[in-house]
């Protein structure tokens, strides 16, 4: 796919973060950060350890409430976001340290991602009454499509705890996809992976963006991978934004180079 082709697909601003500041007691995690995310783009947040990347992600999906600033999602401004509301608006995420149900199968783990979309009551689901059964079949089909997409058919019935790390990461992504998100937040999707697993994951991220048109915000501290797959990059350092732009621009930015090369402040 050519670059002009991609640029055409990227639409209007979907998520706008305005002057966000977040502190825990006296510790300033984020200071006056503003950036936006456009529809269908892959937006990366990078920065050294402790730069505030995960905090930023937690602000977007409502786990943390910033002391200052606001979030505009699809034209509506929110002073605070709650995780539930974020989920209902189509924001899904994966976790840096994986938060899967280790004893449950791959299939069941991904099915939990459909939870919000299940309309039947607990009893109806337990006894699989008519509508509940039809609903389950519908959701199961959706989940099977994800399993096919992520090429994990061979592990459908395997308990997640028995899978290697790289595959668990894929299951985590699968569960987030099951929510049919409009905005997908990925917290270090390639942390701890070997090169081959990183390449696979990069391909899946690009495919998700391409096939489903999902907007993706991802955090990563490995510069190399990020530069290859993202459309625009935000660089954080010590809770401040020090760069924002296309990968090539960011790479050439003096402040970014300093932050990454560890020149004294």
């Amino acid at each position, binding site marked *: *796919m050519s670059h002009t*082709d991609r640029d055409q697909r990227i639409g209007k601003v979907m998520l706008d973060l305005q002057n966000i500041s977040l502190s825990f007691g006296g510790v300033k995690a984020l200071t006056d950060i503003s950036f936006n995310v456009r529809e269908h783009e892959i937006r990366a947040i990078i920065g050294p350890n402790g730069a505030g990347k995960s905090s930023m992600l937690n602000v977007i999906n409502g786990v943390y409430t910033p002391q200052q600033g606001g979030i505009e999602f699809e034209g509506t401004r929110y002073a605070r976001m709650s995780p539930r509301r974020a989920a209902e608006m189509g924001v899904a995420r994966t976790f840096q340290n994986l938060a899967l149900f280790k004893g449950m199968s791959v299939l069941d783990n991904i099915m939990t991602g459909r939870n919000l979309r299940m309309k039947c009551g607990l009893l109806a689901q337990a006894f699989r009454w008519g509508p509940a059964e039809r609903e389950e079949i519908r959701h199961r*089909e959706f989940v*099977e*499509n994800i*399993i*096919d*997409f992520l*090429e994990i*058919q*061979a592990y*459908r019935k395997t308990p997640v705890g028995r899978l290697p790390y790289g595959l668990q990461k894929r299951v985590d992504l699968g569960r987030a996809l099951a929510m049919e998100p409009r905005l997908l937040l990925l917290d270090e999707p390639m942390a701890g992976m070997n090169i081959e697993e990183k390449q696979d994951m990069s391909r899946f991220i690009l*495919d998700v963006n*391409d*096939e489903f048109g999902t907007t993706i915000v991802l955090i990563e501290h490995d510069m190399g991978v990020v530069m290859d797959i993202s459309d625009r990059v935000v660089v954080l350092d010590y809770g401040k934004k020090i760069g924002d732009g296309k990968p090539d621009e960011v790479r050439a930015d003096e402040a970014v180079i300093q932050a990454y090369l560890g020149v004294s402040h």
Partner: protein
Amino acid sequence: MVHAQPAVDGKTSVAPSTFPGLLLQHADARGSRPAIREKDLGIWQTLTWSDVAREVRLTAHGLAALGIKPGMHVAVIGENRPRLYVAMMAAQALGAIPVPLYQDAVAQEMVYVLQDASITVAIVEDQEQVDKMLEVRDQCPDLAHVVYDDPRGLRHYTDPMLRSYEALAETGREYAAQHPEFFEASVAAVQPDDAAAMFYTSGTTGKPKGVVLTHHALIDRARAIAELEKLTDKEDVLAYLPPAWIGQNMFSYTQLLVSGFTVNHPESPETVSIDMRDIGPTYYFAPPRVLEGLLTHVMIRMEDAGRIKRWLFHACMKLARRVGVRILDGESVSPWDRLRYAAGNVLIYGPLRNALGMSRVRVAYTAGEAIGPDLFVFYRSIGINLKQLYGSTETSVFVCVQPDGQVRDDTVGPPVSGVEIRVADNGEILVKSPGLFKEYYRNAKATEEARDAEGWFHTGDAGYLDTDGQLKIIDRAKDVGKLADGSLFAPKYLENKLKFFPHIKEAVAFGADRDHVCAFVNIDLEAVGNWAERRGLPYAGYTDLASKDEVYQLLGECIEQINADLANDPKLAASQISRFLILHKELDPDDDELTRTRKVRRAFIAQKYGVLVDALFAGRDTQYIETEVKFEDGRSGKIAANVKIHPVKTFPAITARAA
């Protein structure tokens, strides 16, 4: 020994003698029975014979619209997929010739075949194959159309050469509307002696050769086996090996159309073992390496089991080794042993067969290369009717098959009905059979060399007919050599002996015209990795594990056993392996070290790793080497290592060496 039988009996004269004829007959006789199943989204989807016939008709019209005419070649590239099977049938219905290619071959390997067969239309599975076609299009000017089955990832491909399978079907529908009589006329025009398929032989040396097989040859051999094994249309087969390999093609395509049974296509290559348990095939085929992989897997799992279960397993397997095979062969066994075997069947053998997905297997074949006696006996002892056969692409597979009750681990069976076998003076096996190939495509010289004026096909294998009429294969005729002192050196025999150890995955023996024998080995990462974990031996990957002294010691012990074994054989005592090394990388078809069917290319390896061979024979302890490797995406890199070389204890020959 001659086993000539009349090729045509009363039944075959009525039955159709071309592939499209067979298809239409099945659609007529058993239209609602399942023909092809595929697991999709976790559910087995069935195509009945009438579905298949309808699809073939549509696809054939589509291909005709793309300009395919009788005698032209159509490339088919991918895993076993219903639509690719349909495409092969459609090409045959037009009198065109399907040419299946190995789906894991890199693009540049495909160029030769695409050029040689003047391919204009390629039917491919997915994006991976489409990318390869786009890569080589400039080298293959004839290639005009590429049809893909799975559209995933292809949304933004706008090349006019590409079209989806649905688009092809749509074209077919239009073409059918304009030419209503076309399909029937095409099918009627196909003759039994026309070429039905072309397979490129992997060839351990030189350029691949296109082996042209006729409708008659393939169908005749499939019928002979259907009769021998009493195959019915109720059989279930799992197709999981590359369709470009004649073995898989015969079992899941030709026999499918001849016997009218059901072929099942796995969801993905990784899910084969799961799908196998789902389906429970009744007719099964596996090359030794697959059976070996399954056994290694079982053994590793058993090692992890509790002590009582382990004891029970070993006790039952001991009994099975003693009486299991005899019970399977219908020989007399004491009632007490029979009772104990029945108990073992309930406790271990039955569940084990079930775990392997072989509960329903009635006939299982292994072929492709020699199978280790332990491995062979293991499967037979737990009640799986595993048998050996012998054949090649040029003979439409079936030359020899072991009939029930005459199964041995060191032979490949007597000739199948219709086949004549003769052993030439130099020990080479010659074959005459109705299943012989028509020619090597556009290579009259090679055809003449392989098939003499009297119609004997020179197999290139050395062997002899045993006293009971069963064929015994020793080695490739051209590989059998002599050591410097004149004693016999059969490298493949040694390599097979080495590979029978679960810790050894590949082996290459050197010794022709030398004073002694040395060997390269590849460890089996799964088996040795598990062994290392058990001992708390840390390792970072193949190269690291392969260089551990402990691993060298482990393999040294294995090779010592072989040497002790060889010392007992006066002919081969001189072939004891005196030094060996563990290669720093796994031999790989992508690096041209193995053929796509995973046979070692000895000459190529000897040349590529020349420094290592020299070091082995020069008696050095280590040798530095840098090797170029190709990755799956076509890029290349370098692996460097200091490879250690260890000596092995050899034994004096037990009998005096023949002068």
